[in-house]
């Protein structure tokens, strides 16, 4: 068996492959649904209905998509330069820590100043925590996959320590949670009385900014060159290490915004379950979008829809809601195969 490069695929082909990957995923997960004793068609119908069947469902999906857009962008930016940032979870929590550290009254500022300050500070913290692995990679040749993964555990323990200590809410009845951020530090809701908040708007804006950076700037070009062939990039005079550092700063900062927006827009405070694995799910979101920043928005909404819809389905159809995680993981694997098939022809001989 060998792989032969294909000519550049047309737009229609490029767009049809993610769909093919999703259809394959649905077929594969149907087996599990059948094993669980339910009918796949009714289960998928219930998932779709739970995700987008009403105004409430749709808003819930967009709310859930917001942190995924940020972590998906963070991963897309990093993976483009082949910086394997698997630590978006840690960067997200760093953003959350900074948001409550500064947003619970330490900075008595009006909202229009405080919110940008919190965003910048959160991004700085997230960037900083990814800078370590990036330096270790470029200076010492330590594979960043393991260091970023291990940092996820360290940062979560650090959060736990802070919530037992300096950030503990004295009125929290002993629960490990922080105080709520002050009213000025809260992102307003998009519609009064609903959960969807301005974090979603910021996420869309971030996707647009990242799209401009990757497609229209020198840095974006350099990132792509480094990701495509680091040796070649070095040969033509691209400062590879510096590009990787900038990529790390951007990626870490984006993931930290997920933590900021969850605290400031949705939860109000920091807890140990601020993220149910948004950092890891961001990897799937980014891959489904083929690392395209605007595609990240669509794939984040799709993935969020699966989770929101599966929760609703699980209550109705008695299929464990973990089916959502299985679908997301399977779509990651089918997607990488689909991307391969857009570029190569498999020839058996």
């Amino acid at each position, binding site marked *: 068996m060998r792989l032969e490069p294909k000519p550049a695929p047309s737009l229609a082909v490029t767009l049809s492959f993610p769909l093919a990957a999703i259809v394959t995923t649905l077929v594969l997960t149907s087996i599990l649904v059948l094993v669980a004793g339910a009918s796949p068609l009714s289960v998928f119908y219930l998932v779709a209905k739970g995700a987008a069947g009403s105004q409430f469902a749709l808003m819930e999906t967009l709310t859930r998509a917001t942190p995924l857009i940020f972590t998906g962008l963070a991963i897309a930016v990093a993976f483009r330069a082949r910086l394997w940032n*698997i630590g978006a979870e840690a960067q997200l929590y760093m953003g959350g820590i900074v948001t409550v550290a500064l947003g619970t009254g330490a900075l008595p500022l009006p909202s229009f100043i405080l919110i940008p300050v919190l965003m910048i500070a959160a991004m700085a913290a997230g960037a900083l925590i990814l800078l370590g692995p990036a330096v*270790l990679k470029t200076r010492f040749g330590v594979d960043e*996959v393991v260091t970023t*993964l*291990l940092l996820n555990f360290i940062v979560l323990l650090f959060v736990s320590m802070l919530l*037992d200590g300096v950030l503990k809410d004295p009125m929290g009845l002993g629960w490990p949670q922080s105080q709520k951020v002050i009213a000025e530090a809260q992102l307003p809701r998009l519609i009064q009385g609903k959960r969807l908040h301005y974090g979603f708007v910021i996420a869309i804006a971030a996707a647009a900014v990242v799209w401009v950076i990757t497609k229209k700037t020198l840095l974006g070009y350099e990132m792509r060159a480094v990701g495509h062939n680091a040796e070649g990039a070095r040969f033509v005079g691209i400062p590879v290490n510096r590009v990787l550092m900038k990529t790390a700063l951007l990626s870490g900062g984006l993931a930290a915004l997920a933590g900021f927006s969850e605290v400031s827009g949705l939860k109000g405070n920091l807890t140990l379950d601020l993220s149910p694995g948004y950092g890891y799910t961001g990897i799937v979101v980014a891959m489904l979008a083929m690392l395209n920043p605007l595609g990240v928005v669509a794939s984040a909404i799709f993935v969020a829809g699966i989770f929101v819809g599966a929760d609703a389905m699980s209550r109705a159809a008695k299929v464990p809601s973990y089916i959502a995680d299985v679908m997301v993981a399977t779509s*990651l*694997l089918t997607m990488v195969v689909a991307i391969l098939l857009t570029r190569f022809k498999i020839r058996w001989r």
Partner: protein
Amino acid sequence: MDALDILFSASFWVAAIRIASPLIFATMGELICERAGVLNLGIEGIMTAGAFAGWFTVYAGGDLWTGLVVAALVGALFGLLHATLTVPLGLSQHVVGIGVTLLATSLTYFTYRLLLPEVTSPPKIEPFQPWPVPGLSKIPVVGEALFTQTPLTYLAFLSVAVVAWTLYRTPVGLAVRAAGENPSAVEAQGISVTGIRMGAVVAGSALMALGGAFLTTSAFNSFFFQMINGRGWICIALVVFGSWRPGKALIGAILFAAFDAYQVRLQQISGGIVPYQVFLMMPYALSILALILVARRATYPKALMIPYQKGER
């Protein structure tokens, strides 16, 4: 008890060897994969699946050894998935590995909820009991630490010997090492690089699953969510720390486990002055430190993470 006294107590070393056992299995598994040229980031999920498969087989009425066989088979299946995607198809080993971890973990949790829908506290099984080796277990400290363990721990040590012997003393081992260093030379000998690599990943994944199964059939007596808790990633660090050599990796695993056992005891005598989370962070921080110390002079298998295509130079 004094912080130093701990190091001379037999119970401390017994615990250290017990903590090391799952790491030894999984580290050997990862080592085989990487020696053949494939980074297997599916390790965390494969350990989770192995832990569940071993436990559930016993819970459903199988005996403990059957549980281990089932766990190894489940691990091998996930290994086959990883190998198929990364070896002949040459897909990114990073992305596929994370995908396999996510898939194995979520499938395990799904299956758990499907089989035990109403359970709130995980049901218990009768785990492996210690098998003191007559005579040897009477040697103070060292004998107690090494020879009053469950059979799986002996098997873990045996796996190191088998892996080392196979890698360095058999033609198959030579082919595995060459597949990770210079695959075209393997192909020139008329041996299929694809076959060698896939076989290594499947066998390695079976060992990883045994590492997971150790937790549910020897260390604890039930399965709970998040039970692997980063042990897989630590094993990847241990492989680097051991410079891809089974013996060195074994020493690394024991040192690491000793440190882990030590921090638990230190936590007790520190009397709460230092937050307990600091102690829990130490194993992860230590893994990063080990990577930094070793990475400079580490000699990676030269073809690690580089897909091989037949006929390509």
